[in-house]
């Protein structure tokens, strides 16, 4: 597969106040293939938006270079803007224009028309077309997000940048949105999308885990999970709050976190299931359940965060 986005040693810092300095992106390189969905996973402030702005030519890097669709981000600004679609993290459409007016406006900006590319966006637009006379500001959640995606696609880009398109969106709308991305990918679209939802990682071809401006992991979801080698157990009992504290005091505990109805504990060498069960029984937990489990991407992310040294308390 040909390369669609090639990033070489890009970095960026920002000044904070008079003397402060934040390294938003530490130098890194990355190639994204044509037709690939690459997911950027990380919390607010990790550097995701900075990377989007650099790749869409809205901001210059301190160092390094990159090509997007074969065009240089430093020299070919206009070409890149024709080639890419960008959905910024903050809702950026005109609230007092209707759905249809927004679409026509963005089409005009790119010297095209809604009619010319109707087939290209039809799959998504039909979800909101019944509300085309409604003002964008009166839409909410999922519908705004679908309109924003339509506007980002109206000039038929080859590469799509989506900055947290599903943040604050309910699980059903999120799933619909990802189904749409899958269909765009099938049509050859390259997609770089960021998300704070770890479960969306599984929907990407490859993911980059980003924390404080650094990639702490980068691979296919399967490979990232395979790299998590510590034994992992799911544990539950009647008193979950006490259980968490006591699991953390267990002598072979590497780390332990609440994970829905279970706690996930990753363990040091020397541990055995009998030893763990015995320890918890001596502490008088009732309705105790322990079973082995495959790590989720979230387990991987937390393990990598700790390895890299979490910078937050």
């Amino acid at each position, binding site marked *: 597969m040909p390369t669609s986005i090639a990033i070489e040693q890009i970095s960026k810092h920002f000044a904070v106040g008079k003397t402060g300095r934040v390294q938003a992106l530490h130098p890194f390189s990355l190639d994204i293939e044509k037709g690939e969905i690459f997911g950027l996973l990380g919390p607010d402030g990790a550097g995701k938006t900075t990377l989007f702005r650099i790749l869409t030519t809205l901001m210059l890097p301190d160092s390094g270079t990159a090509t997007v669709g074969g065009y240089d981000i430093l020299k070919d600004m206009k070409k890149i803007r024709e080639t890419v679609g960008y959905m910024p993290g903050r809702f950026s459409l005109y609230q007092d224009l209707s759905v249809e007016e927004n679409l026509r406006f963005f089409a005009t900006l790119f010297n095209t028309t809604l009619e010319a590319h109707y087939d290209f966006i039809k799959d998504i637009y039909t979800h909101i077309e019944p509300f085309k006379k409604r003002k964008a500001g009166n839409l*909410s*959640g999922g519908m705004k997000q679908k309109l924003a995606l339509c506007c980002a696609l109206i000039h038929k880009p080859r590469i799509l940048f989506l900055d947290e398109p599903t943040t604050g969106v309910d699980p059903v709308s999120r799933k619909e949105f990802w189904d749409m991305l899958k269909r765009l990918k099938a049509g050859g679209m390259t997609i770089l999308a960021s998300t704070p939802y770890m479960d969306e990682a599984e929907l990407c071809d490859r993911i980059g885990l980003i924390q404080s401006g650094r990639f702490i992991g980068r691979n296919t979801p399967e490979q990232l999970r395979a790299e998590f080698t510590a034994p992992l157990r799911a544990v539950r009992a009647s008193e979950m709050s006490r259980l968490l504290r006591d699991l953390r005091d267990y002598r072979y505990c590497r780390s332990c976190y609440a994970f829905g*109805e279970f706690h996930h504990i990753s363990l040091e060498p020397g541990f055995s299931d009998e030893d763990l069960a015995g320890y918890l029984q001596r502490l008088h937990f009732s309705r105790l359940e322990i079973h082995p489990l495959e790590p989720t991407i979230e387990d991987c992310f937390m393990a990598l965060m700790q390895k890299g040294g979490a910078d937050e308390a």
Partner: protein
Amino acid sequence: MKPDIRPTATSDRDTGTIPSVIHVENLTKRFGDFTAVDHISFDVRKGEIFGFLGANGAGKTTAMRMLCGLSHPTEGHGTVAGFDIARQQEAIKKNIGYMSQKFSLYNDLRVWENIRLFAGIYGMRPKQIATKTDALLNRLGFMAEKNTFVEKLPLGWKQKLAFSVAIFHEPQIVFLDEPTGGVDPITRRQFWELIYEAVEQGITVFVTTHYMDEAEYCDRVSIMVDGRIEALDSPRELKKQMNARSMDEVFRQLARKAQRSAD
């Protein structure tokens, strides 16, 4: 509409005789001919973590605004913290805590100034505020940051501080509106540990979230679809009833029934 509020056999707490902190019956809100909240009835018991779930546009925010004394119900009645939601809205505001999804502290005030401001608004006395501030900061390990401008704190700390400020005046119940959006998975969990601590101190927690694993941390959850409460029970019981492996599956099964557009 008859949400099941009987204690379930699988519930981890004996909830049979525990008084309600929220009690609403047929709570309804109409905007013109649009019924945003459609005759919802439920109880939240003292000391529980109650998860209030629903798709975008299902009516959660409207319902929560009525519970917080910010919006008048069109129909129905109820009490929050013992006060009538239609007639004693000011008393409700004094007896609840609220943390919005948008970070709500003042960035250009120092940590202690933020605490003093909000505690003062809730009518606490300066001396009481000063003593409690030190106790709180010691407990959180934030003492070194007492004079730091909030702007300079990492996001995770800001959120923990915002939560601590929301319960500083020891409300009977705290409302958390998507409190963990945008934070890393470790900070998200530390935040929930803080919620558990608050519960151990006797505070009732009413929380909305789009993270379905967080729904599992709740004692009971309700799921709103098209302005109505379609399900209400412990996560374990809901999964059993719907033959689902996860709360995500429960949510999808229910929300898929939505008639009105997810907005």
